[in-house]
């Protein structure tokens, strides 16, 4: 199955990003495809390379980036939501790119299922 994922919350403050990551990992592990992960609202903070969690904690920014590299998952940060929150090219972590909301609609159309992670 082809999945699209929408992450609506930032890392650490909320479990949404963890759940989305674990879901994507499990889906890929079972032979499914994750076409794109779209980061919206505070979810754009998942792409901040200045994020520095304590060394014994999970590093979500890095984990997403590694998934993008290993499994060719497209990680898109919403440009409008990102600009409000200072997530621009200068602080963008590896594996992410910034684009418009059209990318969310597009993956909704292209995927068999779009999953929303947030409240």
């Amino acid at each position, binding site marked *: 199955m082809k999945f699209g994922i*929408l992450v*609506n919350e930032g890392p650490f403050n909320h479990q949404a990003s963890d759940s989305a990551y674990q879901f994507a990992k499990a889906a890929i592990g079972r032979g499914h495809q994750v*076409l*794109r992960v779209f980061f*919206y*609202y505070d979810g754009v903070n998942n792409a901040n390379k200045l994020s520095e969690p304590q060394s014994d904690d999970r590093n979500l920014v890095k984990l997403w980036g590694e998934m*993008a590299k290993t499994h*060719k998952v*497209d990680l*898109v940060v919403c440009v*409008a*939501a990102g600009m*409000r929150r200072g997530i621009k090219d200068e602080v963008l972590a590896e*594996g*992410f*790119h910034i*684009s*418009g*909301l*059209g*990318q*969310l*609609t*597009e*993956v*909704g*159309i*292209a995927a068999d299922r*779009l999953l*929303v992670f*947030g*409240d």
Partner: protein
Amino acid sequence: MSEEPVFDTQGVVKKFMYVNRRAPYGTIYPLEILESVLVAAAFEQDTSVAFLDDGVFQIKKGQDPKELGMKNFSPTFRALAGYDVEKLYVEKESMDARGLKVDDFVVKVRVVSAAELAKLMAEQDILITG
């Protein structure tokens, strides 16, 4: 950064429903989801918007959040018709519980019961919450 993949979406029309459950101010979700509604409509998708719980306040007439330093974005809902987004649903139970009437809204809506809304939701391809 790697090249953005392009998906073949030509000619595909899906049913997108945007679900608004939160009060208009206090969180940014209602404002940002509205931007997303307009984009889906621009992609010529079968787009609808549902208002339930405190989300019904988003389209209440007479909003003035100036004292909060915020912008009244309720007029944007009136722009939806220009994008052919005409399926706007208000859940009756939420409206009644908050003492609102159909004339209190800035846009023309269809009032549906929770059971009817559940049925409409089940018919959608995509549900996006904000």
